[in-house]
């Protein structure tokens, strides 16, 4: 065994790229990595610069450090905390609902002997090719399902995706042996029991993958808010940032046409630094979490690419 390992690493050493090429490649990747990380650090720096120093322009290294922006946000608690609450609620509830909806159907589709298997597979597949588009979804969701200005408009329409269902189906098919399910059946377990007691505990990796996809999706979602939420009280963090980043001049110019609430909001609009502070508030949890969860993402991507 040991000889084999040394032999292999020897071969690998022999097969290595030239040191010069290696340095070049490292250099290229270093540049790319910096390009991907530095803009985020830049935003962090802006949020940590005092409002006075910002008047001269955004600086990479602040002339005057200050937590002014964050203090301002804390003062505007009535604006920030509800938004944070909505974001967290949507992320948590949405992820739970999404995982349940996705895995149940994924499991059912993984059972080859199920009579409606073909029908349901088509049901999942067709939306990948054809969809109703923005306009008709908008009218169905607002006028028929009455989701306008409701927190469920942020959760339900993006809870399930065909892609996730298929990832689940492939995972269940490839990792859960039929014999396990059969033996449970012989022991008299019902299908629901099999699913909750046997299949789910065996499938934690795929649950983590789907959960993460959904979790990041909900946390980062701003489009649903833009379409369905007019009431500022229902704004998530993303929607709040979106609104403050929209042309502030335009908003203040049109103050006369807005409701009292909106006008008040514009008056209290976060200043330059605070806007960036909201962005940091959004980025921070993601930036801290994703390096650890990366591998689940990657496993999801590769399972999805398996074709049957």
């Amino acid at each position: 065994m040991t000889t084999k390992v040394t032999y292999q690493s020897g071969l690998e050493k022999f097969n290595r790229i030239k040191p010069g090429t290696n340095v070049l490649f490292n250099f290229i990747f270093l540049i790319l990595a910096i390009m991907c990380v530095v803009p985020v650090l830049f935003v962090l720096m802006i949020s940590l610069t005092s409002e006075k120093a910002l008047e001269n322009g955004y600086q990479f290294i602040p002339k005057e450090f200050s937590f002014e922006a964050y203090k301002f946000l804390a003062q505007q608690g009535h604006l920030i905390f509800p938004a944070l609450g909505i974001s967290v609620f949507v992320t948590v509830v949405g992820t739970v609902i999404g995982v349940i909806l996705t895995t149940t159907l994924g499991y059912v589709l993984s059972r080859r002997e199920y009579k409606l298997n073909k029908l349901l597979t088509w049901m999942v597949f067709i939306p990948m090719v054809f969809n109703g588009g923005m306009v008709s979804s908008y009218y169905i969701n607002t006028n028929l399902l009455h989701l306008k200005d409701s927190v469920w408009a942020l959760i339900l329409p993006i809870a399930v995706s065909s892609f996730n269902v298929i990832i689940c189906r492939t995972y269940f098919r490839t990792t859960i042996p039929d014999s396990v399910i059969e033996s449970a059946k012989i022991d008299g377990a019902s299908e629901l029991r099999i699913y909750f007691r046997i299949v789910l505990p065996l499938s934690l990796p795929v649950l983590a993958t789907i959960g993460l996809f959904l979790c990041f999706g909900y946390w980062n979602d701003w489009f649903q808010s833009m379409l369905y939420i007019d009431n500022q009280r229902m704004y998530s963090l993303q929607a709040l940032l979106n609104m403050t980043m929209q042309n502030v001049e335009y908003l203040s110019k049109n103050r006369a046409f807005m409701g009292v609430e909106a006008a008040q909001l514009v008056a209290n609009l976060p200043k330059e630094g605070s806007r960036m502070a909201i962005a940091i508030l959004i980025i921070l949890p993601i930036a801290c979490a994703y390096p650890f969860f990366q591998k689940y993402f990657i496993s999801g991507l590769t399972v999805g690419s398996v074709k049957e």
Partner: protein
Amino acid sequence: MQQRFGRLYEAETLLSGISLFRLEVEIFVGYEDIRHGENQGRCDCMKEIRVEQEEKKRTKKRWTRDDTELSLLALPTTIWFLLFCYLPMFGIIIAFKDFRITGGFWQSFIESRWCGFENFVFLFTSDAIKVVTRNTILYNIVFIILGIVVPVTLALMIGQLHNKRAGKVYQTAMFLPYFLSWVVVSAVVWGFLSIDKGLVNQIIQSHGGEGVSWYDTPGFWPPFLIFMNMWKGLGYGMVVYLATITSIDSTYYEAAIIDGATKWQQMKYITLPLLKTVIVMMFIMSVGRIFYSDFGLFYQVPRGASSLYNVTYTIDVFVFQQLKTASTGMASAAAFVQSVLGCATILVTNAIVKKFDRENALI
């Protein structure tokens, strides 16, 4: 024998009802026949198999308790699909109506006047649709080409680094933009491009140049949007291809090395052919979405600036603008065209791929 059979019978009926009992009887009789006449043996075996197959077919057709329970399990998601995917699919016929909200959805739907192709005529006679369609398709063509070439090249390169840990660090860093929303990216871009305070203009001014009003400069945006798209999607694309590359059996390479293959040859004759399936799949999927665009990229990053209309508006941005300014007719017609053309392109691409290379087709 009889006793054993009896027990078997009991167990089987408990499991799945009387039909299996009949099967058992027939099989049992079959075995008896084999004992009696050797010549008939084979024939009876065949009969036995046939009976079994018929039995399978019969049980396949019959609805069992398991099916009910599985249906129950699938029911919530099925309802979700009906409400959020299939209703809107049928809802696209509002493109043929002069849709006005007069109450609930069904009421408005029934009361709205059928207007035939009026919305479409209106849409196609406007200049806007030409511009936005051109933008959408041109951007997508560039995205598709770069979205395959660059990540594949980088994935091939990162696997060659001597220091594997450094490779992991680069990969993690490059994955970061993928996890940022376009709203956040828009804020980041603002930090660089803002007219009076942006970093870029400051640098230009400190070198004696004159600040540029980036958000009013159409020429700047096509390359910049392409860059932003690459920037955000690079880590993801690389990971997709890298995962496939690392799953390639290392013995292929070992054999090739022993035969004296150079790095270049290994890549050309082993890695790339094995990557083909994934590349073709990604290609079909992105070609199928050629009439769609990343709304966030084109709406958030240029901040919906109307002065950039000619270079940044895509079909999605157009539909959204129309929808928000309450001109449903054009919006629904554009969305209809987008859905139908999108569906057609994905089917056609798949059919073409299937013709040349059956294995790699998506459907």
